[in-house]
């Protein structure tokens, strides 16, 4: 995935940062003593609006440029990231409505802007716009770090095509930056969480909901021993921060119209821009507090407007959008062939993820055991707006000491594409009533080669024991309250696989995940185990899916080693 452009830097002189180049907002981050730190630009913003504006030949970015959306919309370029590497006919220019409009130049996307003091407005390609914007980001980072930034890891959405990736690399290289690697946004978010000092490496299945300004992307990521595999992704261009802004805009516009007959602020471009800016501010305020005030001077026809809104009202009018997010998440889990019970963690990322209602909605979808990583549900959660940049910065610090060649070879599909076992592998142990219980050692969807070790208890009296290594898979057992709970969950019918959450809640069923024992891979005997000691079982699945099982008493020597041939 990593490609070098014209700039080639040796590992010693590299100064690498992480960049999240978003459609609405961008962030830059670096690492200080292995901790990722998001860098604030000259204005003190850590989320820098992806906007470039030209006024009298002066270039403005970030919030300064955003302010010009009201007065200088024609020379202000917004939401251009998604246009990179795209043909004009395949772009969605909705979000550029109130700014410079994209133009079709030789099939590619360009903007016509007045970027000089005098003369004709010039036509600038989206690639050049991106380069200019990235150059500003880099300058901010270089100023902050006090040394020249040479390299960067950038995050991209999972559905970025090869062409878009190439275009992004080209635009970044043109800004004088070596692209170390492009990493997928959900992975960056997971990495940012896993890199926290308190994080433990464990097998878990994570839903990453990246709710941005103009688009929402969700992905199911299997994290297995620190290796991440994306199981499914879903993208949505309807529901995002902009749609929440729209809800508020409509709300306030109606309020305004109630007071001032027949004056619709949405009909005037300038009023619309003001309305939008203030609505976004109100939305952000509602993510923090329960009330937000809305006040715009001279909103339309010179009339000032002032109003307030509380969170409840906001959540009511925006319910449609929130439900959209829910459906998106449920859809992606289904796409991955999983159930909400299989999800161990939900990571919320992106600016819109600050909204408390979204997190609490997710809380109600997922079982109590699932951790919802959002600021409103978990006080220790990482700021969702900073997740991606942090992940990119961490990855940059990890790989910056490697030669470009090394990075290229390591990210080659030959290295990254490996078989993943479909079923879990585990040991059979005895339940309280003497029934066989499957205990997973290697989770399903784990990349091979893999090695796991478990310590298993033995019967109280010790002696000879049997280590039985089996495959297992899960299914969802639904127990209706009136029905007698079944203890032995080795059998189940498929009727309850259709997970209609609403009906489930109404009927108050209890749904649980049970393991079903599948094919037996091998059996080993460990003889003469002492009382109360444990048996250590190491399962090693090779790259060709051959399994080596080693079992011995903990602390004992030798052990039984057996090989199960590759299929």
């Amino acid at each position, binding site marked *: 995935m990593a490609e070098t452009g014209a700039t080639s830097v040796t590992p010693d002189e590299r100064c690498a940062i992480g960049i999240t180049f978003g459609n609405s907002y961008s962030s830059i981050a670096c690492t200080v003593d292995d901790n990722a730190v998001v860098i604030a630009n000259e204005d003190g913003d850590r989320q820098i609006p992806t906007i470039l504006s030209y006024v009298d030949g002066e270039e403005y970015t970030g919030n300064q440029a955003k302010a010009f959306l009201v007065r200088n919309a024609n020379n202000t370029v917004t939401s251009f990231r998604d246009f990179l590497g795209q043909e004009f006919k395949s772009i969605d220019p909705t979000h550029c409505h109130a700014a410079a409009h994209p133009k079709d130049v030789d099939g590619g996307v360009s903007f016509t802007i007045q970027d000089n003091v005098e003369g004709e407005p010039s036509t600038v390609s989206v690639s050049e716009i991106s380069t200019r914007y990235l150059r500003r980001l880099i300058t901010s980072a270089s100023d902050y770090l006090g040394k020249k930034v040479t390299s960067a890891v950038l995050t991209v959405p999972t559905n970025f095509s090869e062409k878009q990736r190439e275009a992004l690399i080209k635009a970044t290289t043109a800004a004088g930056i070596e692209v170390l*690697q492009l*990493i997928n946004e959900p*992975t960056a978010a997971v990495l940012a969480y*896993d*890199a926290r000092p308190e994080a433990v*490496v464990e097998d878990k299945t994570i839903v990453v909901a990246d709710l941005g300004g103009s688009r929402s992307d969700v992905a199911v*990521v299997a994290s297995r*021993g620190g*290796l*991440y*595999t*994306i*199981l499914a992704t879903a993208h949505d261009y309807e529901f995002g921060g902009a749609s929440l802004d729209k809800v508020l805009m409509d709300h306030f516009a109606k309020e305004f119209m109630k007071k001032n007959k027949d004056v619709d602020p949405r009909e005037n471009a300038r009023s619309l821009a003001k309305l939008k800016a203030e609505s976004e501010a109100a939305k952000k305020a509602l993510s923090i507090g329960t009330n937000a005030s809305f006040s715009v001077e001279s909103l339309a026809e010179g009339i000032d407007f002032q109003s307030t809104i509380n969170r409840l009202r906001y959540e009511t009018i925006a319910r449609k959008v929130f439900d959209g997010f829910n459906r998106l998440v449920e859809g992606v889990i289904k796409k991955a062939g999983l159930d909400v019970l299989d999800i161990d963690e939900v990571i919320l990322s992106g600016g819109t993820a600050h909204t408390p209602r979204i997190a609490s909605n997710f809380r109600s979808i997922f079982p109590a055991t699932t951790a919802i990583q959002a600021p409103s549900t978990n006080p220790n959660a990482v700021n969702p707006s900073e997740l991606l940049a942090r992940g990119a910065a*961490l*990855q940059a610090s990890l*790989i910056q000491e490697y030669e470009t060649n090394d990075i290229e070879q*390591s*990210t080659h599909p030959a*290295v*990254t*594409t*490996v*078989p993943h*076992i*479909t*079923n879990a*592998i585990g040991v059979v*142990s005895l339940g309280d009533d003497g029934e066989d*219980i499957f*205990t997973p*050692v290697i989770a399903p969807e784990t*990349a091979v080669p893999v*090695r796991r*070790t*478990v*310590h*298993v*208890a033995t*019967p109280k009296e010790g002696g*000879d*024991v049997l*280590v*039985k290594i089996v495959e297992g898979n899960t299914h969802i057992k639904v127990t209706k309250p009136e029905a007698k709970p079944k203890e032995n969950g080795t059998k189940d019918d498929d009727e309850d696989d259709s997970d209609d959450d609403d009906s489930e809640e109404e009927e108050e069923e209890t749904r649980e995940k049970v393991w079903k024992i599948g094919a*037996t*891979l*091998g*059996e*080993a*005997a*460990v*003889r003469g185990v002492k009382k109360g000691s*444990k*048996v250590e079982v190491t399962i090693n699945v*090779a790259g060709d*899916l051959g399994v080596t099982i080693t079992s011995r008493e903990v602390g004992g020597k030798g052990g*039984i*080693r*057996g*090989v199960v*041939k590759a299929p």
Partner: protein
Amino acid sequence: MTTATVVSKPIPALAEGWSAEKDFKPLSSITSSSQRTIEPVGPHFLAHARRARHKRTFSEDDRIQAQEKAKNIEKDDDDDVSEPEDPMMLQREAKDWKSQDHYQVLGLSKYRYKATEDQIKRAHRKKVLKHHPDKKAALGATEDDNFFKCIQKATEVLLDPVKRRQFDSVDEKADVEPPSKKDASKNFYKLWSRVFKAEARFSKTQPVPSFGGEDATKEEVDAFYNFWYNFDSWRSFEYLDEDVPDDNENRDQKRHMERKNTNARKKKKAEDNARLRKMLDECSAGDERIKRFRQQANAAKNKKKFEKEEAERKAKEDARLKKEAEEKAAKEAEEKAKTDREANKKAKEAAKNAVKKNKRVLKGSVKDANYFSSGGDASASQIDAVLGDVETVQGKVDPDEIAALAAKLNGLKVADEIKAVWKGEVERLVAAGKLKDGDCKSFI
């Protein structure tokens, strides 16, 4: 993931009668798998990529990583800057620092000019920890900080690039003595290359061409000797200067000392150059490669000479053969010309005779025709006119035509026929423009 998770539920006891070879029964392979792409991100992926690219198993990778870690630790250790201390050295007086071996004081005698700044720093720190006067005082020893001062002085010299260079210039302990002839006969290349390697530390131009082994090419050997005969050395001998009095009182004395030092330096430098030159001469004299190249060159030269002579001889031979061939050809041509001439002569005579005979025939024919007189003997004037016309015709035609005419006339006796022939001939000649229309009237 080497840490083991603990499963609290016990595993079953071994059933009666369960037995297998080596206590293990493989039963079934993994039933299903799918190809997926791992995200190339995070520290664990780096480990995965390392294993995949070097084709290591988990345990191999663990071992190699552990080794690398161990190596790093070892490097942090000061093993490379420790060596036993000479008790005599510890007794040194600090004021004699000029004569001390700074590398030995810091325990770097096996590195000398190769010691890095980092090594010097670490060695210094180590020595300071050991020999600090406060530590000695704590042990109850007398206040003897002489060796500590030696250490400080050594570090001061070695960490200052200028001073270190001056010291390295005169650090003869780093020199390698040229081998004796007897040693060199056995191990010529190895021993001499060591000498030059040590000597190369003084070179201003780096890298220095290597001495090479027995199979070095002529270019390499030439380059080596050319380099060393034009050696550009930074070696200087300030370090051995006598102390210049620092007082202002005796300026003349000071200047005198300075001059003396400058001269001494120059002299030493010249001596050093001479020493190097002598060493090189000695080395090149014993260098088998040079002899070999000379022989090869001689052989090549001889070969050229021989070839040249051969070419000359051949050219001479060729010239001789050519000449002979030419002479022969000339002779043959002459002979041929002679025979041709004779044959020509004969043919001419034959032709002359034939012409004469034919002319006789022509004249005879007119005589036979009685000189075309119509009756009786022809008058003398008529005879003259006819014979004159015959002469004219004869003069106008070449011998072949005369022969043809003679053939026509031969055997003809009747005067009219003869006249007709003559008439035809004259008409032919008139048509050819050889005769004028009015000529030879007697035939018409």
